[in-house]
């Protein structure tokens, strides 16, 4: 250990950071800890920090439900809705960034304002439409809804990345006769790859965690992990440990994805705030 590190170790700022970090992370740690307790241990007073861990709750969850089916639905709906969203958002953001008109700002703001309508307010219309189209309890319905839900944010994020690309580069290839598709594919996307991935990540996270539509529009076939959580929430009897286990199983994959991609997110989530 070098002298500098040793000094750093006692640095007041670093101590404060670690205290804050541990306190802030504690709820997640506690959820995990509760998931490996028995139901009786989970309500013990004083709360138990040291105990013999058990995986029983995870087995119970798997026994009662088909975890993999729910997880699969979550993956399919969040990934496909993100792809669908990107397919629609990329051309729009390109047009906003490289061929702005006097309406660009208004259209963008209008798009963002569609996100402010509370989902419960349009439940019946959406439910009836989905039913008429025969899409109740299908992944397709969720994919479309999630894509629409996240589209405004995606367009805006991509727009802010595309704007950073010097127009001269595009001018140059355009003179060489590159089509719009070629420009997007060969220049714009490679140059804003970081922004593209963080946009996709944010969309995946938001879709994964969506609970209202995924509970109200699904039954047995297309239920996602948020519906799985609902089936363990507040039954009669003791349930904290099982609830924690199902929470760990449902949030685990997306947290791990977040951990692995955090560098990307830290670099990418600018929303055009950095000039």
């Amino acid at each position, binding site marked *: 250990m070098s002298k500098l590190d040793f000094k750093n170790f006692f640095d007041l700022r670093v101590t404060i950071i670690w205290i804050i970090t541990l306190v802030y*992370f504690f709820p997640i740690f506690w959820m995990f800890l509760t998931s490996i307790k028995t139901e009786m241990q989970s309500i013990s007073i004083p709360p138990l920090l040291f105990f013999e861990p058990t995986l029983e709750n995870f087995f119970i969850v798997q026994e009662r439900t088909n975890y993999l089916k729910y997880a699969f639905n979550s993956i399919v709906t969040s990934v496909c809705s993100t792809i669908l969203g990107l397919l629609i958002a990329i051309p729009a953001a390109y047009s906003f960034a490289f061929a702005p008109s006097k309406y660009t700002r208004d259209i963008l703001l209008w798009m963002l304002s569609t996100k402010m*309508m509370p989902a419960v307010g349009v439940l019946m219309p959406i439910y009836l439409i989905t039913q008429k189209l025969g899409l109740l309890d299908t992944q397709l319905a969720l994919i479309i809804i999630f894509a629409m839900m996240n589209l405004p944010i995606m367009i805006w994020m991509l727009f802010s990345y595309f704007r950073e690309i010097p127009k001269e580069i595009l001018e140059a290839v355009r003179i060489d006769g590159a089509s719009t598709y070629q420009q997007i594919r060969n220049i714009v996307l490679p140059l804003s790859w970081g922004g593209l991935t963080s946009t996709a990540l944010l969309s995946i996270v938001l879709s994964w965690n969506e609970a209202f539509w995924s509970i109200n529009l699904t039954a047995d076939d297309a239920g996602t992990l948020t519906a799985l959580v609902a089936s363990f929430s507040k039954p009669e009897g003791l349930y904290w440990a099982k609830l924690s286990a199902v929470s760990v199983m449902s949030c685990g994959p997306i947290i791990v994805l*977040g951990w692995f991609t955090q560098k990307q997110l830290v670099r990418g989530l600018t929303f055009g705030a950095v000039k």
Partner: protein
Amino acid sequence: MSNLTRRLLLTPSVISLLLWMIVPLGMTLYFSFMRYNLLYPERFGFTGLLNYEFFLTDPAIWPSVLNTLLLVGFVVIITCILGITFAVLLQSPFRGRGIARVMLISPFFIMPTVNALIWENLFLNPVYGLFAFISTSLGLPVIEWLSELPLFSIIMMVTWQWTPFALLIFMTSLQSIDKEQIEAAEIDGASEWNKFVYLTIPHLLRPIAIVVMIQTIFHLSLFAEIFVTTSGGPGYQSTNVAFLIFAQALMQFDAGIASAGGVFAIILANVVAIFLIRQVGKSLML
């Protein structure tokens, strides 16, 4: 680029969002003038402004508007303050910074329903919750969070989840702060506080605007946390507009009044949009 290409490129997004907005909105408007209780399908018919009258004379309406604004306001302010604090603390490297960063942003990935369930049970339960245990160990009276401080409890849960979002954006932004300027200030003997006030804060103004705007958009229709924990109570103390509409739509099954509520919420959102989003938006675009 030709006008045609530009329009073609915009078409899919504009059309799909228009459909996404106009169709449900149109149906919502239509239902809002209809007597439409799911439990009385045979009574379906035109009812004029009666649904609006019932929604607007609901004793919960003004408390719920106030709660909506309080929720958005407090969450936005607290997440910004905490987010900036964390970002500044994390700015210069130290051993384990990557791990600290990962731990601090983790709450953002938790499902809102799970967030609410975990807080409600493991922490805020007045008998077995961790907070109750801490209070009793310190000899303090136990706080019944969800009944004594319902709105505060919800703000706490949402803040815990969204501070990481603010932190992410502020961290990103701080990476591009002008290092030379800071060095120059240090040579001039500027204190840490002065550097923060005169260099960091001005640099963060745009990201703050972004955080305010995006969170406003998300929290105006905040629902899951209230649904899971307080059901809007006690009384109307934690009922916001989204939850009030929900109570009409899915607890009373009155799609007509819920639609009137939906129209009301859209108007409210647009008022907020005009005052806030446009101002923030103006400073961000073009």
